[in-house]
């Protein structure tokens, strides 16, 4: 039987099933019609009966059933219902159980909520989530003006808000993830656009001492270099400005990386990337004044180049860079990378300097 105890796990798996067979629009249709239209019809019913108050009561009931660590704030005189989620139990289930089949689990909430609220005359004035279990939302009755309220529970005051990457909605519309790169809110589109001008990518590792490490091609100003946080943090190993830097979860040199990044003129700064793997250390980029890195797993999953194995070892940063370059369909050259075909594992492995 398909139970409710592990619902979040098979729900997430289902999203990937839909996306991979029928595409993005099919998944949006599932959320809008099956979840928003049928499964959550009791939300629409109470919202029609009692407006924001009805929705508030339903969410309080749901929060008790699902053990949500959140605060709902209702101020009907200001036409505002606000949610501040401190620890999403749904995303938390995935993190706890090391599940990551789909590109973007958090997307589903707005996927069903937005069509549902729109159908009963409500508007999602603002919403943001950081993909780490924290989010906030403001709703209003669309036919009346709203006055935003300042709340003590504002999740953005919580240090956990400094982690992850942010998707933002305003007036029922999802905003671009990185507007100076692409108008798209899809991180896959951002990556494709960022690398559009580069036909060939040089992956630069930090293994310059190993006899097996490749040293060619020589680096020069025109080389589009893709490298890791460790290599980027050391200017001798990475003398050129790379086009992008993948920050691994162990990011031992994050402060040095930030120093170099912030000292670089904005037009020459690399795009920062991160895997955001479940059950791995969650990094605070914001405190170091770094932009929140773009996630790379969505593109790898969409291209079929990455399947998360809950019981398997995670790929290392250089392996992830290979996969990214493959996903972007670029010619790849190597420098400072010792790569070999593992006889037992049957896949390419990168020898790490510390090995």
């Amino acid at each position, binding site marked *: *039987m398909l139970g409710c105890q592990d619902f979040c*796990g098979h729900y997430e798996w289902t999203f990937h099933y839909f996306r991979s067979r*029928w595409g993005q629009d099919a998944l949006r249709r599932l959320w809008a019609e099956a979840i928003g239209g049928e499964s959550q019809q009791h939300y629409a019913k109470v919202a029609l009966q009692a407006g924001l108050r009805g929705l508030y009561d339903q969410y309080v009931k749901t929060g008790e059933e699902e053990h949500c660590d959140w605060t709902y704030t209702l101020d009907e005189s200001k036409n505002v219902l606000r949610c501040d989620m401190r620890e999403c*139990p749904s995303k938390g289930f995935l993190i706890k159980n090391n599940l990551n089949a789909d590109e973007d689990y958090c997307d589903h909430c707005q996927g069903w909520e937005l069509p549902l609220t729109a159908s009963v005359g409500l508007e999602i004035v603002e919403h943001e989530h950081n993909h780490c279990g924290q989010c906030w939302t403001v709703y209003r009755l669309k036919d009346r003006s709203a006055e935003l309220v300042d709340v003590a529970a504002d999740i953005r005051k919580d240090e956990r808000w400094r982690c992850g990457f942010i998707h933002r909605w305003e007036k029922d519309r999802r905003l671009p993830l990185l507007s100076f790169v692409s108008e798209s809110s899809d991180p896959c589109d951002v990556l494709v656009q960022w690398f559009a001008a580069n036909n060939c990518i040089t992956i630069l590792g930090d293994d310059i001492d190993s006899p097996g490490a490749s040293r060619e091609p020589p680096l020069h100003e025109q080389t589009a270099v893709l490298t890791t946080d460790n290599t980027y943090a050391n200017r001798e190993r990475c003398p050129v400005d790379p086009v992008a830097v993948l920050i691994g979860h162990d990011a031992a040199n994050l402060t040095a990386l930030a120093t170099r990044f912030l000292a670089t003129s904005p037009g020459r700064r690399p795009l920062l990337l991160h895997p955001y793997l479940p059950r791995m250390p969650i990094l605070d980029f914001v405190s170091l004044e770094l932009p929140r890195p773009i996630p790379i797993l969505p593109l790898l999953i969409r291209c079929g180049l990455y399947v998360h194995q809950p019981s398997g070892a995670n790929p290392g940063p250089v392996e992830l860079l290979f996969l990214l370059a493959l996903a972007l369909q670029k010619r790849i050259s190597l420098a400072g990378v010792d790569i070999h075909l593992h006889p037992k594992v049957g896949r390419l492995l990168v020898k790490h300097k510390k090995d």
Partner: protein
Amino acid sequence: MAAPDFYFAINATFRHLHDVYGKAALIDYWRSLGREYYRSRTDRWKNGDLQTLAVDWQNYFAEEPQAVVDVTVAAHAVEVNITVCPAIKHLRDNHRDIVPYFCEHCDHICGAMADVSGYTFHREGGGGSCRQRFVQLPSGTEEARKC
């Protein structure tokens, strides 16, 4: 986080798959879910014995709200007697329109899980209570299947 309202989403997802993509797609979804999503469970079944499978189902139903289920080990089989199906009960209690093929999800999800772990799956009954059996394949049958 066993919130019973999640059964609403399960029922609605089945209907959506059936109505938009057809019954064959729904069956493929069920069987893929059994094979892929539940791989960690079927790996345990494959590497364990009948008791492993029985304990797995006992633990599973213990977390489902309002389930009344008895799991027993018989000769070469595990029997799961479901007196109260928690999903059907919650859907009925909340006056939800249950898809007529709801019970078939067990045939295909459990069937696919059984296939990859050396068992066959059988169900008798339905509509809120049923008897499910996981029958152990004779030794060597699974290898023969793989070939």
